[in-house]
């Protein structure tokens, strides 16, 4: 017992002899110890490994051997890659402007609505809480031909010919994009609303006293002051559309990315290369390409933010 007391006294002595600053440092690193191990093992090491794998011919069955830039060369010569590259950018350049335009218009008017405001906001927000994998099946059902498909039923009752939607190489990509846009609107509307609220009322009052028409107020005050919000949403939704997967995979499970690869995005190509063909090295090179694309988008964001 005395030994224990002695040891505690000694330890207490050692601890209390340290200055407040030294104690703080010890506490700080002990708080960070487990997280740092996590970040090194689960984030940094795999990042380097992904780069390394992209220059190997690793498959599940045979060990990895260094092949230099062969995977990248193969990727550039692969017509499927260019098809997928085009699809991925189509998701981006259709999805981002369309979803931002709709969500801005909704938020702009919803901001002025007092009557049942939170109810209407909830209607727009609910799809954001859904599971993409589940909703892809609902939309898949909507796109079916008569008599199952709701959309074709409505079209035929209006006398418009049936549309093939998911069966057509030209219509399938917009048809896959629609649920992705739909599910993301609620989030964008909420962020726009927050951005609109953050604009001081006095600016508007001053503009009204000066007799500026609504359109000019929108152009000269609302939109410029909303720029940080806008930049954030452009980047956030761009990254989302560039990484689209769940919807595409589930809306056409018999031939994910079909028909004829017309809806296949980069992440689906990565998935199939790695887990259907088991060409891990080749898939790793594709992930590096995705990383570079996302990095460029993020750097453009930083640039735009600095310009404000």
């Amino acid at each position, binding site marked *: 017992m005395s030994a224990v007391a002695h040891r505690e006294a000694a330890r207490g002595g050692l601890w209390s002899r340290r200055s407040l600053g030294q*104690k703080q*440092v010890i*506490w*700080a690193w002990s*708080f960070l110890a487990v*997280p740092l191990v*996590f*970040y090194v093992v*689960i984030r*940094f*090491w*795999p*990042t380097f*490994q*992904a780069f390394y794998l992209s220059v190997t011919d690793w498959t599940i069955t045979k060990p990895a051997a260094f092949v230099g830039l062969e995977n990248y060369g193969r990727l550039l010569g692969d017509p499927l890659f260019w098809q997928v590259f085009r699809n991925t950018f189509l998701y981006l350049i259709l999805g981002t402007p369309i979803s931002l335009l709709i969500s801005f218009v*909704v938020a702009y*008017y919803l901001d002025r609505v*007092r009557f*049942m405001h*939170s109810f*209407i906001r*909830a*209607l*727009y927000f*609910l*799809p954001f*809480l*859904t*599971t*993409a*994998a*589940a*909703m892809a*099946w609902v939309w898949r*059902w*909507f796109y079916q031909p008569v008599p*199952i498909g*709701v959309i074709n*039923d409505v079209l035929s009752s209006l006398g418009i010919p049936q549309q093939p939607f998911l069966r057509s190489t030209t219509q399938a990509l917009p048809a896959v994009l629609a*649920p992705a846009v*739909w599910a993301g609107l609620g*989030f964008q509307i*909420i*962020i726009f609303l*927050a951005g609109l609220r*953050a604009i001081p009322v006095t600016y508007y009052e001053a503009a009204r006293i000066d007799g500026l028409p609504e359109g000019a107020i929108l152009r000269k005050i609302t939109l410029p002051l909303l720029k940080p919000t806008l930049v954030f949403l452009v980047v956030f939704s761009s990254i989302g559309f560039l*990484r689209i997967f*769940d919807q595409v*995979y*589930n809306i056409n*499970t018999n031939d994910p990315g079909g028909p004829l690869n017309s809806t296949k995005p980069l*992440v689906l190509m*990565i998935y199939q290369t*790695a*887990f259907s063909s088991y060409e891990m090295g080749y*898939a790793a090179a594709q*992930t590096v390409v*995705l*990383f570079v694309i*996302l990095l460029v988008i993020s750097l453009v964001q930083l640039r735009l933010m600095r310009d404000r």
Partner: protein
Amino acid sequence: MKAAASPPGLVMPHIRPGRILAWTLLFIGGVIMVTPLLFMLSTSLKDASQVYDLRVIPETPTLDNYIEILGDGRFTRWLVNSTIVAVIVTLSNVFFDSLVGYTLAKFRFRGRYVVFIAILSTLMIPTEMLVLPWYLMASQFGWIDSYWGIMFPGMMTAFGTFLMKQFFEGVPDDFLEAARIDGLNEFTIWWKIAMPLVTPALSALAIFTFLGNWTAFFWPLIVTTSAELYTLPVGLSSFAVEQSIQWEKIMTGASIATLPTLIIFLFLQRYIVRGVMLAGLKG
């Protein structure tokens, strides 16, 4: 409040036709937004003979689809799996992200900036790039088909750490100093004094982490191979494939995957909307 303070003539806002039109259009748009959800739910309450009847209110609603699907056992298993995974990952993020965020916001020590930049830089790395090394790691350590295998990549996030750091920076140092003088140790100061001051941020973090993990598809699809370990989205996907065109069954499965988050929203709408705003503005 505002209306009460205004002179009586201004209490009634002038109702202009433009306002009414805008409200009506917003309302119609909102109804269109929830239409897919309404059709999903209504079809899940129909039997096979009514599926082609596209009325939203079923003629003879029935819970048979739910009884059959939940009775089969797989969906209950996937519900349990998804819940376990989402809850544990959320708790882990709430604990570790705020611990790291707090340390980086409130402690002064050499290397602080380096640690912060290092963690922040992981935001640049897309999950898809890490998936192959994670898969390799999981197969080497036998984590394929285990809860840990599904959970380990998301136990901490740079986004959550950054969010919490922002909020802890707003906590006055005097509060912490006072607790230090009272002889509380640093862990207790963080847990008992600082954490309660950032509850809005904690709820935002919890909501985002839970929702993200509940709906996650890509990694669980890769790391689970046996149906026993599927999470709800992966299970639903495999279930729907095997049902081929039994749409009422597929819609029931989709409803089971979707309803929990919708019900949580009905109860916590204010917190969730505020949380999304907080995360969006600070994040």
